C-alpha cells in the first residue's frame, strides 16, 4: 500500500494578523490596549468552556472566573489537581535577574528564540519573557513554596541552553507546587460558584456553529453518558500529544483527542513533527514497560555525563578509571558542557550508544555521575538539592545513585507542535483558543528546560484572559445554541457511532497492543533521527495499522459504564491519524532543526543543519479527510531582533 498522504497540496499562506508591528518590547502593551474589553457587568452573561485543568487550563479557568466570566471546566482525572503538569520536576524560568548575572527580558527572549532553533515567532517569545517575571510574583503570593536561601529570598539554578541562573524551583516538584497554586485558585472560584467543574468528563469533539466554536461533546467517564455543553468561546488546554509514541514521560491518560478533533473541525495543526526527546530519562527495562520516568534536567547542573571510551566495556562504572571515560558533552561542547540544550544532549547520547559505547542492558544508556558533586559539596548538600529524584531513581532501578552513577537514556517528553494560534492564542476556528502545550506558539523546534511551566502559566494567567475579551466583545450577542441544533446533534451522533463501532468489532487484539505497535513504529522512524526512507515506510504502514485496528480491536463491556478500555481505544483512533500527519510533516521538512533531525541535513560535524532559505516557516496543516492528503499553509517567520545563525554551544 502506498500512502496517498505524501501528495499533499500547498494552500494560501497563513499569517498572524493579531500581533502589532512596532518595537517588539511594546507589542504586548499595544495589543492589550487595542483589544476590546467586556464591561464587568456584562461578563457574567458570557460562558467560556475550558478543557483541561493543568497549569494553562487551571490558571485560565481561575483567572477568567475572577474577571466575572461564567466558566465551565472539564478534566478527565477525578480531580483537577492531578493534571499532568504536576509531574514537571525541575523549575520555571523568569528573567528576574535576582543573581545580577547579566539576565534580562531580552536575554530570555534571545535564549528562547535561539534554543528553539529559529522556528518560533519573535512577538510571542518576547511577550513570554516579559510575563515571566509576573508569574513568579503571582505564584509567591499564592503561597507556592519555592526554594529559598537563608536570607529568606528565592533561590535559583541553571538549566540547559543558558548561561545565567534564572530557574526558580521547589525541590524536584516545581510542577506540583505551581499546579497546586493554580488548583487552589480554581478551587476558590468553584466554591464561589463562578466555575462549574466537570471532573471525570472527557471532551470527545468540538461543536462548530456558523463557523464559530460554540461548544463541546463530552463523555461522563463514570456513567458513560455523552452530553453537550455550550459557550461563547472554547479554550483547549488539553496538553501535548507525546503519547502517540506509547512510551513517553507523559501520564498514561494524557491524550490528543481534544486537539485532534478540533483539527478535524477546522483548526490548523502546526509543526506536528516538532517533538522533544528528553535526554535524562530512566532506561526501559523490558516489554512490560508502560511509561518512562524523567530524571529532571536540573541534575545536569551537578551530574557529569559519560560513557566508556572503549566499545563494549562491560566493567562496572566504578572500576573504569578516569582516563578511560569519555565525558563527551564536556569534550564536544566545552562552553556549555553538560548543560547543552535537550535536543543536542539527546542526539549525542544516541550517537555514543550507536557507536557501541552505551551502558546497561542492551547498551541503551549513558552514565550521569554525581561522584564529583558529592566530593565537592558533600552528600548532604546533594541530598538537599536532589534527594527526591535520587529516591525515585533508587525505587525504580533498585540501584543507589549515591554509590553508582545513574543510567539515563533519551525519551519522548514534550511536543512543541500543536494547534496553530495567532498572537491572541486563537486557532483558525473563530472562538476556539488553545493554550499551553496544546498550541504551537513559543518554543519553535526545541523547548528549553523550565520553559513549559512558564508558557503554561503565561498563557493561562495573563495572555488568554486579556485576548479573549477582544473576541467576546466583538461577538457580544451570539444566538443561543442548544443540543437540538442540527450542528450539535450531528456531532453527538458521530461520536456515539464511533464508540458503538469500537465496541462492536469484538476482534482479537487489545487497545494497548495497537498503541504499542504504533509507538514503536513512530520511535523508530519519527523519533530522534529521521530519514526520507524511514518516514515513507511509516507513512505506508500507518494506514495498514489503522485498517487492522478497525478490524481486530477488542473492547470489552459497554459504553454506558465506567470503561477504561473504551477510553483508551477511542484515544488510539486519534493517534492513528495524528501519527500520519507527524510523519508527513517530518518528511516535508527536509531540513534539520531543533528536535527534528533529518539525517540528510547535517553539518560536517554532525549537528543539525537548518535551511532557512526553504524552511523558515511554521507549517500549518489543514485537515481534509481521514487518509487523504492535508493542505499545507505556511506562516513565514520574520526575524528582526535575533538574527538566525547556526546554533553553537561549543
Amino acid at each position: 500500500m502506498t500512502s496517498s498522504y505524501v501528495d499533499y497540496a500547498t494552500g494560501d499562506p497563513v499569517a498572524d494578523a493579531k500581533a502589532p508591528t512596532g518595537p517588539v518590547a511594546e507589542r504586548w502593551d499595544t495589543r492589550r490596549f487595542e483589544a476590546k474589553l467586556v464591561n464587568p457587568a456584562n461578563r457574567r452573561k458570557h460562558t467560556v468552556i475550558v478543557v483541561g485543568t493543568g497549569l494553562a487550563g487551571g490558571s485560565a479557568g481561575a483567572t477568567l472566573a475572577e474577571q466575572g466570566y461564567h466558566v465551565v471546566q472539564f478534566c478527565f482525572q477525578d480531580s483537577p489537581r492531578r493534571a499532568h503538569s504536576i509531574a514537571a520536576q525541575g523549575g520555571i524560568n523568569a528573567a528576574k535577574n535576582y543573581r545580577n548575572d547579566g539576565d534580562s527580558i531580552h536575554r530570555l527572549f534571545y535564549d528562547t528564540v535561539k534554543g528553539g532553533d529559529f522556528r518560533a515567532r519573535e512577538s510571542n517569545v518576547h511577550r513570554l519573557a516579559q510575563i515571566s517575571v509576573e508569574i513568579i510574583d503571582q505564584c509567591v503570593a499564592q503561597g507556592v513554596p519555592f526554594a529559598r536561601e537563608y536570607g529568606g529570598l528565592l533561590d535559583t539554578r541553571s538549566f540547559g541552553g543558558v548561561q545565567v541562573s534564572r530557574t526558580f524551583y521547589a525541590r524536584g516538584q516545581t510542577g506540583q507546587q505551581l499546579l497546586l497554586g493554580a488548583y487552589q485558585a480554581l478551587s476558590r472560584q468553584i466554591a464561589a460558584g463562578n466555575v462549574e467543574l466537570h471532573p471525570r468528563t472527557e471532551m470527545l469533539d468540538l461543536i462548530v456553529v456558523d463557523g464559530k466554536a460554540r461548544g463541546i461533546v463530552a463523555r461522563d467517564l463514570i456513567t458513560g453518558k455523552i452530553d453537550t455543553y455550550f459557550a461563547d468561546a472554547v479554550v483547549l488546554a488539553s496538553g501535548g500529544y507525546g503519547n502517540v509514541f506509547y512510551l513517553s514521560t507523559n501520564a498514561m491518560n494524557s491524550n490528543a483527542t481534544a486537539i485532534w478533533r478540533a483539527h478535524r473541525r477546522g483548526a490548523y495543526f502546526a509543526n506536528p513533527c516538532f517533538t522533544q526527546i528528553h535526554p535524562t530519562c530512566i532506561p526501559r527495562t523490558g516489554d512490560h514497560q508502560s511509561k518512562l520516568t524523567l530524571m529532571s534536567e536540573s541534575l545536569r547542573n551537578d551530574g557529569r555525563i559519560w560513557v566508556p571510551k572503549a566499545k563494549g566495556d562491560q566493567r562496572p562504572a566504578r572500576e573504569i578509571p578516569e582516563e578511560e571515560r569519555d565525558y563527551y558533552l564536556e569534550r564536544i561542547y566545552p562552553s556549555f558542557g553538560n548543560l547543552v540544550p535537550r535536543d543536542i544532549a539527546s542526539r549525542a547520547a544516541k550517537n555514543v550508544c550507536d557507536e557501541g559505547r552505551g551502558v546497561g542492558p542492551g547498551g541503551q544508556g549513558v552514565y550521569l555521575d554525581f561522584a564529583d558533586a558529592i566530593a565537592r559539596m558533600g552528600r548532604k548538600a546533594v541530598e538537599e538539592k536532589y534527594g527526591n529524584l535520587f529516591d525515585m531513581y533508587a525505587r525504580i532501578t533498585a540501584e543507589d545513585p549515591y554509590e553508582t552513577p545513574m543510567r539515563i537514556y533519551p525519551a519522548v517528553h514534550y511536543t512543541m507542535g500543536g494547534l496553530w494560534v495567532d498572537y491572541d492564542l486563537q486557532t483558525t476556528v473563530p472562538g476556539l483558543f488553545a493554550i499551553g502545550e496544546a498550541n504551537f506558539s513559543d518554543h519553535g523546534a526545541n523547548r528549553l528546560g523550565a520553559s513549559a511551566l512558564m508558557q503554561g502559566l503565561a498563557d493561562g494567567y495573563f495572555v488568554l484572559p486579556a485576548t479573549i475579551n477582544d473576541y467576546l466583545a466583538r461577538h457580544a450577542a451570539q444566538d443561543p445554541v442548544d443540543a437540538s441544533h442540527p450542528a450539535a446533534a450531528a456531532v453527538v451522533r458521530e461520536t456515539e457511532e464511533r464508540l458503538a463501532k469500537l465496541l462492536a468489532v469484538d476482534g482479537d487484539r487489545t487497545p494497548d497492543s495497537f498503541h504499542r505497535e504504533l509507538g514503536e513504529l513512530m520511535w523508530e522512524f519519527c523519533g530522534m533521527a529521521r530519514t526520507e526512507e524511514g518516514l515513507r515506510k511509516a507513512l505506508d504502514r500507518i494506514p495498514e495499522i489503522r485498517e487492522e485496528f478497525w478490524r481486530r480491536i477488542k473492547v470489552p463491556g459497554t459504553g454506558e459504564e465506567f470503561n477504561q478500555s473504551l477510553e483508551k481505544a477511542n484515544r488510539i483512533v486519534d493517534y492513528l491519524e495524528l501519527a500520519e500527519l507527524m510523519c508527513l510533516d517530518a518528511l516535508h521538512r527536509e531540513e534539520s532543526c531543533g528536535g527534528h533531525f533529518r539525517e540528510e541535513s547535517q553539518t560536517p560535524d554532525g549537528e543539525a543543519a537548518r535551511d532557512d532559505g526553504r524552511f523558515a516557516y511554521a507549517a500549518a496543516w489543514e485537515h481534509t479527510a481521514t487518509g487523504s492528503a492535508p493542505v499545507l499553509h505556511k506562516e513565514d517567520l520574520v526575524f528582526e531582533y535575533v538574527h538566525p545563525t547556526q546554533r553553537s554551544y561549543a
Partner: protein
Amino acid sequence: MKLTLRVWRQKNPDTPGEMASYDVDNISADMSFLEMLDTLNEELILRGDDPVAFDHDCREGICGACSLVINGDAHGPERTTTCQLHMRSFSDGDTIDVEPWRASAFPVVKDLVVDRSAFDRIIQAGGYVSVPTGAAPEAHATPVPKADADFAFEHAECIGCGACVAACPNGSAMLFTSAKINHLNVLPQGAPERETRVLDMVAQMDDEGFGGCTLTGECATACPKGIPLPSIAAMNKEWLRANRKAKR
C-alpha cells in the same frame, strides 16, 4: 514469578462486590505493581472478561491517582505510591490481596476506583490564598525565613491520594487537611486568612463524613510523601487559636 491475586470486583456503587481470584505468570521483578495489573488486564480482555478498573495516571508517584490497598496496607508494603511499588517487593508464589481505599467518605465507583471528591471540597472550603491574578506584589518584597519555607514545603508535598484516610481505622482525613493548613498558615502570604482557613476546612472535613482522629498514627505511616504526624497537632493548635479568637 507466578502470583495469585485476590482482587476486589464491584460493578458499580449499587452492586455488592466480592474478592475474585486470578493467577498471573511471567511477572518480572522490574515491573511496577500497576504494570503487573496491566498484564492481568490484557489477559482478561482477550478472554472476553471485564478488566479490573483502577485509577492511575502519571505512574511517577506525584499525581496521587493510584490508590490500592495491598495485603491490607495502603499503597502496599513499601513507603511509596502504588505506581512506584515494584514486584521485587514480592516473592514467587505469593498470594496478594488488592482492595480499594476503604472509607465511607470515599464510595467505590467500580472495582478499585473510589470517589475522592470530598478532598476537593475540603480545599474549596479554604485551602487557598485569596489573591486574584494580577494583584501580586514583587516576589522579593516579603522574605520568608528558610525554616518556614521548608516547613511549608514539607506539608505542600501532599499529593491528595487518600492513603491517610484508607490507613486510618477511623477513616479520618486529619492528616490531609492539616497538611494544607500548615503549608499555607506558616507563610506570611497565608496569614490574613489563617483563622477562617482552619475553621472552614475542618468544618468541611467533618461534614464529609470522615472519622475523628484518635492519634493512631497509621496515616503518617502510610503517607507516601512523609507528611509527619505532628502536622495534626499543629492543626489542632491552629484550630484552638482560631476558635478562641472567633469567640472574642
